[in-house]
């Protein structure tokens, strides 16, 4: 398995400085020959609440689920859950997983035709059932697709308790169709389940979205990859964030591993590259001291796949300590960009136009500076950007709900920094 981990940082610190920042790029060439080293299992959860009848969503969801089933590789274990006020297993028999083959996929397609929209939205119950089914296949690369069109109807706190219970045990990609669902709610699910969240505003785009998610899931070759971060005594990890392809703070997912190390779950991996921002507070050193501030290892169980060192070297030479590392600066900006957009949307909802204008202005500036064109275009659907360089924007009177939700869900999407130093 070809994993590499590479550090980008300015290791030089001024005397008295104690904050060490580094970007660690983890690249995997995938398993040898692209073969999975573990089995795989897939759950497709389709919201069948009453509201799905509108705008032909149910019809589109059926087609999307069929398209996704068509992408499941032979031999993969799978099941389909119909999401109503409770979770109902649509295929195969309750409590079972089917083994993907032409016959089982054909049976699943027939079952999907029976999906009818009636009932409520109970995301917690759906995920819980998915978790129970997947628990039969420990060691598998486990993935679920969750489609919903509305707000969760379960009593307050239930979804959170389910996420605490099953968070990280499988990857779940979430898609909201239409504009009546809540971005923050699905983002919470996606963050806890190490998956992605996105809006599919038009039902007719669902099939493409499901096909893309399933294809990407089938490309994963390792089940449970983790980032192990060792730090010396008296040092503390301030945060570990994934910063590319999208921003996700992993700090809260730390599991202590011995007195000086913690593990952060990265989910499943295929042939891909992701960037992580590691920030460590260390005790100050004397001029010329060199400290290993963190040893970052990519691990699968006890197997160390690759390792990168984050160093701190204290110097009196301010020409060295004031150098700005491009990678660290770029991704610090991308994380601030996501925060600014989310704060701007929140402020606009609360009628605080002043704060909203300020936050969107800063976001426009950051998106422009970093060459994040996709985010800049999404911003332009919510505000009129008068001058991206100075961050001068004007709130639009009328904003399409779908545009604002797209900006919100995709605010965490980052662009990769150029590799040249």
């Amino acid at each position, binding site marked *: 398995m070809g994993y590499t981990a590479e550090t980008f940082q300015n290791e030089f610190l001024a005397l008295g400085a104690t904050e060490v920042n580094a970007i660690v790029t983890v690249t995997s060439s995938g398993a040898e020959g692209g073969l999975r080293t573990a089995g795989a299992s897939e759950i497709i959860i389709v919201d069948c609440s009453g509201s799905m009848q509108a705008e032909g969503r149910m019809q589109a969801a059926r087609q999307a689920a069929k398209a996704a089933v068509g992408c499941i590789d032979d031999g993969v274990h799978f099941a389909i859950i119909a999401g109503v006020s409770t979770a109902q297993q649509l295929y195969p028999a309750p409590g079972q997983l089917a083994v993907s083959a032409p016959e089982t996929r054909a049976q699943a397609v027939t079952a999907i035709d029976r999906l009818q929209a009636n009932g409520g939205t109970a995301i917690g119950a759906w995920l819980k059932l998915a978790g129970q089914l997947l628990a039969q296949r420990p060691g598998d690369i486990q993935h679920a697709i969750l489609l919903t069109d509305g707000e969760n109807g379960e009593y307050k706190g239930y979804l959170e308790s389910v996420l605490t219970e099953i968070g990280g045990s499988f990857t779940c990609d979430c898609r909201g169709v239409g504009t009546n669902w809540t971005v923050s709610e699905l983002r919470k699910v996606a963050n806890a389940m190490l998956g992605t969240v996105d809006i599919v505003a038009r039902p007719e785009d669902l099939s493409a979205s499901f096909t893309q998610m399933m294809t990407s899931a089938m490309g994963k070759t390792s089940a449970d990859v983790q980032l192990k971060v060792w730090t010396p*005594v008296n040092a503390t990890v301030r945060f570990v964030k994934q910063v590319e392809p999208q921003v996700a703070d992993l700090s809260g997912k730390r599991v202590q591993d011995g007195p000086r190390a913690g593990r952060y779950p990265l989910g499943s991996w295929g042939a891909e590259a992701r960037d992580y921002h590691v920030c460590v507070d260390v005790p100050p050193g004397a001029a010329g001291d060199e*400290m290993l501030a963190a040893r970052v290892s990519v691990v699968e169980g006890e197997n160390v796949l690759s390792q990168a060192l984050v160093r701190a070297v204290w*110097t009196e*030479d301010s020409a060295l300590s004031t150098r700005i590392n491009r990678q660290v600066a770029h991704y610090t900006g991308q994380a601030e960009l996501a925060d600014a957009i989310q704060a701007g949307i929140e402020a606009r909802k609360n009628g605080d136009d002043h704060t909203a204008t300020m936050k969107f202005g800063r976001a426009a500036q950051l998106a422009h500076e970093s060459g994040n064109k996709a985010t800049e275009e999404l911003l332009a659907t919510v505000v009129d950007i008068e001058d991206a360089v100075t961050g001068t924007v004007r709130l639009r009177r009328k904003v399409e709900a779908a545009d604002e939700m797209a900006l919100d869900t995709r605010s965490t999407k980052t662009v990769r920094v150029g590799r040249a130093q």
Partner: protein
Amino acid sequence: MSDSCPVCADERAAGAAFCESCGRPLATGATKAVGTDCASCGSTGTVGADGYCENCGMLAGRPRDHVEADAGTVAAAVTDRGIRHHRNEDAMWLAVRGTEADIVVCDGVSSSADPDVASEVAAEAAGKALALDATVEAAISEAARAVADLISAGDPRRAVSNPACTIVAARVRDGEVTYGWVGDSRAYWIALDGSHVEQLTEDDSWATHAIAMGADPQAAWNDPKAHAITAWLGADAGIVRPRGATLPVTTPGLLVLCSDGLWNYLTEPAAFANAVLAAVHTNPDLVSAARALATLAVEAGGADNITVALTPITP
């Protein structure tokens, strides 16, 4: 520091990174072994495989921070990181056989990429060439080529900011001394009785150039550009034309090669000679004298890396 090559037992290997006879790398007090005690936090047996303490994270030892080459009464050399710089970008080569000696001192240009690599590569290339009986001029040309080649090796940053360094080299054969240099690392000749001191090299630096053009020496040396070098080894150096000469030795004396980390604190030749002779006369051996000179520079502020090589010559 070994006195001879552990592989072929050639005695000229003292202080060298590679044996001149067989070309094998020599142990030079490299990184501390795994499982040794940490000097920073005092933990027992915590130094890990990558050289950092598993408890406090401090680097257990950088082999180039302080290196001594002891060739007994024939020659000795010491290089030290000093205080201000975070690593030692000076490098040296000292190899002896009988009374013959090859000495090289290089100083990496801090503003270039990987100057520590430049100096190390230059010292080694020149040293190996001298061992094969090349002239000093040819040895410096070898070093120039080796440093220029660094831009195409590894790190892309090197192509943007060429690794660069100075060099001063000397070759001692049967009491005859030839020397050469590029940059502002120096060679001095000091008569043992103190009757005579001579700076053999003329710095390739802005200050020296300005003084030669008629500027007031004090004003020139106080200028911020004073130490900017006008010739160096590196891919951007153009054609390197080392300067050099042969030194006629008529009285017993000391050949001293050093980087500006030492001579900066002793700019007057007389003061330089007094410090060197005091060190030689008050210390039991040559290597202690060289160490004392490095310590003198460290105690004076240690603003730069310090390298000094002492070679007594009798006619």
